[in-house]
């Protein structure tokens, strides 16, 4: 994909679609067009397994006829399909009710500056290179330990994309981006015990991916460490979330403080603005314009300019996360969270990973979570877990087939330490998290 050609073409399609919508009777309209092209190459047991060429196009349009909304999308970008999508959206708006809160985001909030966030680092997508990387990664894992007896394979993904957002306030902005990943999942066995685990690297720059050797060895080390896992007794004990899974706790926070959950009154964090939620030393900074970061963007899904925000300051919740619709429902102004969050940086308590184990003392170190047992309405939390039993800061043996349970509000207040070595592969950058106590169910 030649992004420098695709972007202006996409902008033209978006402009045409908006024009058509206006002609057909829309008083406001917004459209987005995303094109992604890539390869996915996987190996298994040192042989190439799959080579996939991907190419995805999606155009989405929302129209407002007065305060009536209609939406449509199409993966077919022919003139005929684009016209049909616009007509369908207009047609639907005849049946939706008038909704005072609907409409585009306020014009004054729309992004006008588009600094280069360095999200686009193209390389020639070469399947042979992808195969070599996947083979090298898997080989590193398979060679690392004789207990690694099987493999789910290694995969290299390379994607480049061009996305455009436009609305009838006048914004029509494009963003090119790239994303590369290399991952590996292997299986270890000993007697009747069989375990699998994985490791991965993801980056906007191909050259900044972790090396195949490191990824393979990390997968190998993880899977072997799980062999011989056992259940532990049902008890109350401190729980340490590894940095790889710790971001999920803040993911639940995102759901609970989103405007949609608030106006629906379906969150346990109603009426919590400017109230303490976390220990005093904890802050959450949102920094949407970090160069090369995975969740960076100049504007949200409604074209609203993103801005630096301290979501949690000194443990106190300072901002809810609004879209223009949820903001109007709640009588406030949107703060650019249509489509989600942008790079959350979680503060730490100065502890290294080793210190975190020492702080845990005797308790459960959780490295894997299973299932969806989180209720955002009540904050009740109950999930499957696997990890290690730790005594006096030293790992004793692997643990599996247990659950950990509590209530998120209490869990947030119970955070006693966050590690300084951070997970950087997602929208939430956090270290490992230590909770003073949770209910563990096992034997």
């Amino acid at each position: 994909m030649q992004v420098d050609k695709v972007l202006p073409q996409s902008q033209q399609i978006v402009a045409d679609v908006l024009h058509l919508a206006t002609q057909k009777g829309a008083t406001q309209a917004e459209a987005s067009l995303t094109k992604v092209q890539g390869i996915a190459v996987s190996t298994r047991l040192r042989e190439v397994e799959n080579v996939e060429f991907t190419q995805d196009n999606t155009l989405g349009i929302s129209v407002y006829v007065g305060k009536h909304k209609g939406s449509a999308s199409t993966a077919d970008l022919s003139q005929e399909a684009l016209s049909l999508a616009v007509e369908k959206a207009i047609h639907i708006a005849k049946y939706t009710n008038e909704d005072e809160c609907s409409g585009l985001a306020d014009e004054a909030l729309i992004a006008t500056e588009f600094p280069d966030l360095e999200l686009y680092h193209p390389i020639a997508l070469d399947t042979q290179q992808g195969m070599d990387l996947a083979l090298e990664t898997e080989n590193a894992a398979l060679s690392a330990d004789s207990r690694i007896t099987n493999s789910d394979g290694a995969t290299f993904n390379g994607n480049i994309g061009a996305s455009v957002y436009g609305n009838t306030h006048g914004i029509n902005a494009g963003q090119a981006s790239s994303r590369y990943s290399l991952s590996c999942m292997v299986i270890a066995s000993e007697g009747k015990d069989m375990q699998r685990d994985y490791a991965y690297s993801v980056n906007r720059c191909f050259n900044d991916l972790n090396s195949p050797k490191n990824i393979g060895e990390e997968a190998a080390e993880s899977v072997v460490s799980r062999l011989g896992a056992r259940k532990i007794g049902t008890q109350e004990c401190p729980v340490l979330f590894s940095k790889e899974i710790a971001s999920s706790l803040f993911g639940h926070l995102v759901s609970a403080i989103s405007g949609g959950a608030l106006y629906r009154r379906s969150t346990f964090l109603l009426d919590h603005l400017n109230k303490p939620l976390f220990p005093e030393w904890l802050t959450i900074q949102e920094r949407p314009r970090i160069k090369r970061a995975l969740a960076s963007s100049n504007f949200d899904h409604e074209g609203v300019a993103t801005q630096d925000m301290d979501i949690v300051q000194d443990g106190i919740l300072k901002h809810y996360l609004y879209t223009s619709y949820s903001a109007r429902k709640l009588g406030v102004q949107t703060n650019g969270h249509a489509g989600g969050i942008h790079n959350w940086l979680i503060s730490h308590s100065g502890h290294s990973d080793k210190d975190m184990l020492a702080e845990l003392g005797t308790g459960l170190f959780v490295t894997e979570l299973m299932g969806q047992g989180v209720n955002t309405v009540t904050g009740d939390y109950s999930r499957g877990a696997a990890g290690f039993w730790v005594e006096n800061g030293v790992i004793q043996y692997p643990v599996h087939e247990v659950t950990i349970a509590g209530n998120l509000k209490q869990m947030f207040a119970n955070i006693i330490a966050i590690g300084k070595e951070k997970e950087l592969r997602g929208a939430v950058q956090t270290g490992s998290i230590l909770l003073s106590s949770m209910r563990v169910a096992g034997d």
Partner: protein
Amino acid sequence: MSNPVEADLLGSNGLDQSSCHKAIDQIMSHDVDFADLYFQSSQHESWVLEDGIIKEGSFNLEKGVGVRAISGEKTGFAYSDDITLEALLRASQAARNIAPSNGSQNCSTFHSNAITHRYGTQNPLSSLKDEEKISLLRATDKYIREQEPSATQVAVSLSGVYEHVLVAASDGTFATDIRPLVRLNCSVLLEQDGRRERGSAGAGGRHGFDFFLLEEDGLLRYQQLAEDALHMARVNMQAIDSPAGTMPVVLGSGWPGVLLHEAVGHGLEGDFNRKGSSTFSGRIGERVAAKGVTVVDDGTMDNRRGSLNVDDEGTPTAYNVLIEDGILKGYMQDKHNAHLMGVQPTGNGRRESYAHLPMPRMTNTYMLGGEYSPEEIIATVEKGIYAPNFAGGQVDITSGKFVFSSAEAYLIENGNVTTPVKGATLIGNGPDVMQQISMIGNDMKLDRGVGVCGKDGQSVPVGVGQPTLKIDALTVGGTA
């Protein structure tokens, strides 16, 4: 062309069967064992009611063709959302590069087998007028608010999909299918003394939207769903903390069959077993569940959400016995894995869309009924949990560990269902838990048609079902 799917996917794009032949022959000029083309078009419509108004509606259009070439254990895959001869040949050239260019085979002559129709061919999007769809949403909202005037939030959504698929393969397979699918969901939020609880319910299948206006247990179906959502919210309003630890668990009939989907279903998919990565690998003929336990995967049930006339490789779906009286009988297969394992495909080759590779997947997976009434089963438990409703689950097919989360549950005390308890995650090991099934109810039923199964990032609609079951020991992840 008299076949409407062929006319839509080939004819209207200037293609015909000979274009498919040409593309497949082009792939077979490389040393591939098998190649197929998967053409698809779909229309999806959804409507949302919230705060008493019709808030949103959307319409989505998708079409494209996926091209696959298989050589030994290797697969090459490319697709295009542009259905033209040029795009088809371009995708074929990309996919065939999985194998060197010294092929000697040709595409077999296409043959279409008569298929048994498990569902109608009417487009559900036009099964009701738009005004009638709106009325259905409003009637559901009105019903809930009449039953519970103090409800804080009521949300109702209606969605329908109409899909055409066409499969042409080098083995001569030429199959088409028309797939309708509808779904209605409602949720209600209640508030009482500062406590808030939500209840939800949904139903659907391969029907028109009029399905929701039919009678079920003395009420119209949408009213029944509204009652169920209200019931769940009211029960949860009274719920105390769930116990923690290992104890007897009685699972209700129907949707709790998600247990089977997670505990054994995924582990019996052919790809994992070919690769030896499943806890059930190499165990055909062995006892993997308690005596009396028979589990089937059945894609042939009329109008069910997980049913298909043919799978996404053109193989007719079937009634496949996975476990019979506790003994492992067979795996679910697509063509690729069946070929490599030297068995026949079972009609379980499924894919999310033309842009995804097919894999062995479940259709409707359920356990056959036994001899006990639900009351008899509950009466045997001194202290445990009764769980008639669940949210989703997840499994690690290698270790066999699986979880599923209850959405409505009660304590059982001295043989009686007593106080509601909060939702909790249940965790176990598939083969162990299947051995712990000690009583099987006589009330087998399927879920209402809302299941979505995810695997390798691909979602497909599925059904689950079971009778009331007693599991002697299962770990319950409560807080009490």
